[in-house]
């Protein structure tokens, strides 16, 4: 299963991940258009936390036993058994925020800009590589196929 791994040591707090996430999930998918007048039309699904020189970007961990899936009252939040990706079906989501309530990483957001639904990382499943990973200038984010890294640094534990 492909997972984004975070190397806190090398997050430089530039927040390009957030910017590119917004671009990717915007309607136009064009950076200048998406940020026209400084107002991106969607929220970033990756969040950079920063205090002093410490920072890291965090997005949905696509947990094995995802609490958000268990808490979802509408069946919008599902985990794909094959890819392991946890997706929020925005058509089904009613915006009850139960997922926000239980996500221990705090990476699900209320997307009030688009429609009132929970917004979370979809691992850019239609891209070769999630845009936050691709655009991280310092490789603090890495996408790793845990199945291919069994026993390795990033293997499933």
């Amino acid at each position, binding site marked *: 299963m492909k997972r984004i791994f975070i*190397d806190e*040591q*090398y*997050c*430089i*707090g*530039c*927040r*390009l991940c957030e*910017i*590119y996430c917004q671009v990717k999930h915007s309607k136009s998918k064009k*950076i*200048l258009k998406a*940020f026209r007048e*400084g107002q991106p039309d969607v929220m970033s699904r990756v969040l950079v936390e920063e205090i*002093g*020189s410490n920072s890291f970007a965090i997005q949905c961990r696509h947990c094995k036993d995802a609490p958000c899936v268990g808490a979802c009252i509408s069946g919008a939040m599902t985990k794909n058994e094959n890819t392991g990706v946890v997706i929020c079906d925005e058509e089904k989501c009613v915006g009850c925020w139960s997922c926000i309530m239980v996500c221990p990483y705090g990476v699900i957001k209320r997307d009030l800009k688009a429609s009132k639904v929970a917004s979370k990382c979809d691992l850019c499943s239609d891209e070769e590589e999630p845009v936050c990973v691709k*655009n991280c*200038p*310092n*490789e*603090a984010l890495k996408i790793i196929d845990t199945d291919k890294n069994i026993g390795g640094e990033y293997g499933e534990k």
Partner: protein
Amino acid sequence: MPLKLNQSEFVVERDLNKCISCEVCVRQCSNDVHEFDADDKTVLSECSKCIGCHRCESLCPTEAITIRKKEAEFKENSNWQPAHIKNIYRQADSGGVLLTGMGSDKPHTVYWDHILFNAAQVTNPSIDPLREPMEIKTFIGAKPESLEIEKIGDEFKLKTKLGPHLELSTPILISAMSYGSISLNACKSLASAAEAFGTFYNTGEGGMHKELARYAKNTIVQVASGRFGVDRQYLRSAAAVEIKIGQGAKPGIGGHLPGEKVTADISGTRMIPQGSDAISPAPHHDIYSIEDLAQLIFAIKEATDYLKPVGVKVSAVHNIAPIASGIVRAGADFVSIDGFRGGTGAAPQAIRDNVGIPIELALAAVDTRLREEGIRHKAAIIVAGSMRSSSDIIKAIALGADAVYIATAALIALGCHLCQKCYTGKCNWGIATQDPYLTKRLNPSIGTRKLSGLLRAWSLEIKEMLGGAGINAIESLRGNKEHLRGINLSETELSILGIKHAGQAW
């Protein structure tokens, strides 16, 4: 506003049609050039603070920023160049020595650019490195006078053992840069690239950080005038030891790392109290003559059981040939010569730009002198001082070097933009800084990959050029000046370099 004679060196141009106010530039500039104005929701830039490192430009996702040089349009004067005028303004303000970083940027002759390399045609086939082996493995160490080989029946048995040698997969080593002058992440990148590529890096005079101990077998440790971090363990763990007498950028000058930069980590590595100034005296206070050097060389050999090559690094100065000869005769296994274009973290500008001689001339002079004296085999020659490309390296080897040291090129591979502000400790690329906010910008795994990439690329180019000249082993190029021709050089220069002018056949 106080009278400010000094002027901005750079202009920050921001294309407002492209700026999305994402504040990446604001977050990335350690010089506080950019600032987000919450009222206007725009980013403003203060050009006078810009030092031209191009970090913001590189990371701007919309290419909205361009950093341009700002030419101070003084009245034309061929004698009083703007640089002179600006330096005087700066010094009149500060009353101090003008500091600078990296190698000299003055337009002195770069001899590499006046030397052309050869290729084989018809009479001698060129060799295709893609299809034929192309050997650039290089050894650094002393060679004995002769070999005793015993023949027992049909078997030959070596009776003379070769002294300690460094084995390099490519004739390129990474030159001395201390932890302190550069970040630990930069050190890790250099060390791990050296390991990955089968060559060596040099600790510089800063001692060996415990996290770098795992690269010991690819490490040359330095013993400099401050003796920072030097103990038996340090000497014995490394692959080789280098006594540093001088550095190309600042011959005759010591170093000074201010106490505030001596963090806990650096204090541990340098073995000095935290917060105390780390002063490298100009001379080694136990080396006032060549015989003192000989004693130190043998003291180190004793301490390392004669298992490690011990070398000496000197700046290329006017008298370099006899100096090198003395060093070889003092027992050094290799001599590192640093030309005056070599880099530094901090040096007085006056010295950096005016003291020493170019490495090309120093190398040719030293190689010739050692050959004349019949002692060339006693020590390897490593040259440093601005190896900018594989072609500089191949020319250095043809001029007689065994290998070269690269440092500035290695840092550029890690992202250095040569802004020459290393001495401020605010390197935006995370290289010449200890600020944890900045050092994390250099991810050693990227650094390792980039530097390994450079080493690989240059090695491939060296192989291509070797093959083109019909040579398939680097030792056949070493000192092979027949493959070099000078262009636009005087008779004296050609004669010092020992090469013919372009157009002259064999």
